């Protein structure tokens, strides 16, 4: 398959410096110029991480996340996949991964470059899950790292699990989203059990030029693009001690 099979939908383009990326409805970003697929915060084995501490959350999250990833990889056949850190929910995650899931992950890596950027959850991860581990990575003008670095330009990161609430004709709707201002792009968390954090919350303060902020909310089969003005609470971070939005999960 060729990149031409990539199904484009209205408003799915994201500009970062002078590069164009595509926001996919599965939650991954695609960089056509380098045929690179980028995912953030896969949080594999979050279910089993809870189970081992006494809360038997359904053990199907790794398989669900992998299935979604596999469908995307099959459709666009990237030459390179970059995971932006926190691929596992904790550092013992790779050991807990089932044979079946591990095989599937290995098959996805066949024939392409696979890069694991270290996150805070899985920094000391042990166990063989293929690929190459790096702290951060630069490709052309873009830098890939887990946590956003203040003052950096042209970086793509994860860690914060952005979500946004936007105004629609009757009320508001909240979804996980891509958040970018042309100089930085933060990807939504990809994992089936990974929650979202409001872009209007304190953690995002100072990361974007608010008037340039654009979010792409994840929808069914497409993403929905909104400027900062549509985001509930985006401009009102007060003195930085208060969250203007309530949502935590």
């Amino acid at each position, binding site marked *: 398959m060729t990149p031409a099979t990539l199904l484009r939908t209205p408003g799915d383009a994201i500009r970062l410096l002078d590069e164009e990326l595509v926001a996919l409805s599965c939650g991954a970003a695609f960089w056509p110029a380098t045929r690179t697929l980028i995912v953030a915060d896969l949080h594999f084995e979050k279910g089993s991480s809870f189970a081992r501490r006494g809360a038997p959350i359904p053990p199907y999250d790794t398989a669900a996340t992998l299935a979604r990833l596999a469908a995307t990889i099959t459709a666009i056949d990237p030459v390179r996949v970059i995971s932006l850190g926190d691929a596992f929910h904790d550092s013992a995650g790779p050991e807990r991964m089932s044979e079946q899931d591990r095989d599937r992950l290995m098959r996805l890596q066949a024939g392409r470059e696979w890069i694991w950027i270290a996150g805070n959850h899985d920094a000391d991860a042990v166990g063989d899950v293929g690929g190459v581990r790096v702290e951060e990575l630069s490709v052309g003008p873009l830098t890939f790292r887990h946590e956003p670095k203040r003052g950096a330009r042209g970086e793509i990161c994860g860690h914060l699990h952005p979500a946004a*609430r936007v105004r629609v004709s009757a009320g508001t709707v909240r979804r996980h989203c891509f958040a970018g201002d042309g100089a930085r792009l933060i990807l939504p968390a990809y994992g089936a*059990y990974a929650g979202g954090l409001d872009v209007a919350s304190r953690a995002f303060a100072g990361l974007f030029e608010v008037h340039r902020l654009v979010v792409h909310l994840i929808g069914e089969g497409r993403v929905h693009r909104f400027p900062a003005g549509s985001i509930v609470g985006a401009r009102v971070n007060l003195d930085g001690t208060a969250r*203007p939005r309530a949502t935590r999960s």
Partner: protein
Amino acid sequence: MSTPFATPTEIVLPERFATWFAARGWQLRPHQAAMLGKARDGRSALLIAPTGAGKTLAGFLPSLVELADPAKRPKMALTGRGVRRKGIHTLYVSPLKALAVDVARNLEAPIAEMGLEITVETRTGDTPAHKRQRQKYAPPDILMTTPEQVALLLASAEAPDLFGALKRVVFDELHSLVTSKRGDLLALDLARLRRLAPDLVAVGLSATVKDPNELAAWLVAQAPSADRAEADIVTAPPGAPPDIRILEPTDPDEWRIPWAGHLAVHAMPAVIAAIATAKTAIVFVNTRAQAELVFQELWRINEANLRIALHHGSLDVAQRRRVEAAMAAGGGPGGLDAVVATSTLDLGIDWGDVDLVIHVGAPKGASRLAQRIGRANHRLDEPSRALLVPANRFEVLECEAAIEAAAAGAQDTPPIRSGALDVLAQHVLGCAVAAPFRDDDLYAEIISALPYRDLTRVGFDRVVDFVATGGYALKSYERYARIRRTRDGTWRVANPQVAQTWRLNVGTIVEMPMLKVRLVSGLSGPVAKMGGRILGEMEEYFFETLTPGDTFLFGGEVLRFVGIRETEALVARARGKDPRIPSYWGGKFPLSTHLAERVRGLLADPASWKALPTQVREWLELQRLHSRLPRPGELMIETFPRGGRGYMVVYAFEGRPAHQTLGMLLTRRMERMGLRPLGFVCNDYALGVWAATDLGGAFARRRPSLDELFDEDMLGDDLESWLDDSALLKRTFRNCAIIAGLVERRHPGKEKSGRQMTIATDLVWDVLRTHQPDHVLIEATRADAAAGLLDIRRLASMLARVKAHITHVRLSRISPLAVPIMLEIGRESVPGSAEEEMLREAADDLIAEATGR
């Protein structure tokens, strides 16, 4: 079936008691004597009595008499640990902490005055830890507590000593306990108590209910494949019939009864006037939003400066206690003239001075109204006084129907639930926390509880499997098991952490995620680092809909939303015009089937209209002229064109939740049939749907026919596909997941320090329903939703009933009866399935704008 009262000759009060009764000028009432007789014979009994009948004394007298007799006092016994101690003699369980405390206080007087050596103590969440600890090794004779504390005590190592000699357990307000998951848990705990104390006698105290026999069966052990066992029933004579009136304009020009709405603002001057005639009045409303508005409106016109307070579940506890204390002071100094209240005052301690109940809005159910009216006047021989204030024309009909029901003594309390599986999971883990159990024994114990009588062994084993490792087809959690079967065949808790987590999460009341509402300085600019006082708590999702600067009504004040800090919503006082009204999920009871039938009967019988206010009568006459009136047994549907759209109004009278579900399913089906539905709206009485096509014409051509459109098969695949994505189901799942112990409750403070793990249950739901749709928690969630928020049971029975009895009335314009439902349009929030559509629309609009297309 009531058993005849024991005659006073059969029951002789011990001398001390007889003297005490005589000194107060009291006589032993027949139902009190009957309860003594049941106790003497060792029979469990259900006492049904109106307020003011001395119900509590009837419940406790047998315990006091027995404990006063030195020969019958519990003996000190040697326990396994070599300590000599006695256990609890009587356990009293109340749905409310405050009620337990109040009843304990009321028992102290007779005990002191008769010089009895009986100890009475309370145990609630507020009891200090050292006292709770002491109660475990030196328990009182009578312990007054709540269902959650019973579960905790049963799971403690001391349970066999505490309850081994238990003689009686008394459940107060049993009718209200059994209608929720709390009742399921309590039924399981009762079964456990019976195992620890096989001769235990159970006593239920209840208001009048529709099916007392069912309630009597709840009290006693059920045997497998035998007829239902029931406790004896003792019924006290009813009090004087209540004096209920409907507020109506004295002359037709005074005010108009509104077509729609639930706030009755028009009637507030009359409500103020009524309050002025009473010593103390309770103004009951159905929702917290109504409470806020009615309170606000009453104070706006309160020229006589009547002392009016507000009481609802979101207000700070200390504030509520102050209001209750003022209520107790009655209409005198330091007291109150009226309190505006929600169901938080439906039950609870008696206030002697309340002599008027004002009910604003729809009564919803006959028994519910009777219960509320009973809050006025606690003397049996005097009628309780009540004033019903309907907020719209349909509510006038509903009030009239409720008065008829009260006169006929009709009851419409719901039947006892079948036990929930999430509650069972919590109980099973609790049993393991108490002591290792054998599954055969535990199964036998559980099916002796009425709500779990029909639980199959397979069903039980699935729950045990869930408790152990999550019950997943993918058996990957064996090594993380919470309970394990050991070599001796018993199930044991895997580690002490499991028990600790269980204790922190016990109970079945799951609150929506809440934020504390803190008042900060009203100045603009930076938010004060140190907050002001806490006004109460509100659902987090309400604040999700607010933007800083928005104003809203809370605790009778207009507040401005400032922001959110950790688990607090910061607000400032504001001078707001048009404050928003918080909408709450709770407290929205549907119209009962019984009252609905009466309303339909009233509509169909013009001869009965003379009891109605002139304006309402004229409205119905107009409807008769312009369209027709729905008849009992049929489903009437009106269609009419309006503003280029086709409208359909379905007069189903099945209550809002069932109509909401019907609306979702109908519009899906209409979409498929090419009728292009655009939206729907509903209230307790009807459902309105509008479409881009001529609905009347389509039905007249039978394309589709109405029988086809309303076919019961909509409850099949359509329901399934909608349910899977329904926000209601996700909310229900969250409750089940917390009760069953899949995820932990949020414990304030712990989340901040990171000691608590959190996961969004919505995400878990999506994964679980895709990968294991037959999981026990999905089953529990669907069962909950079917009975509760979606009311599928009621919808199903309606669809079956109206088959071939659907009448289509095709009109050229809107009918008088359709006006109220049409006025609801625009007040509704968005149903979940439209979310994606609106998101697309909003995003595309912006793109179109930007590209100039």
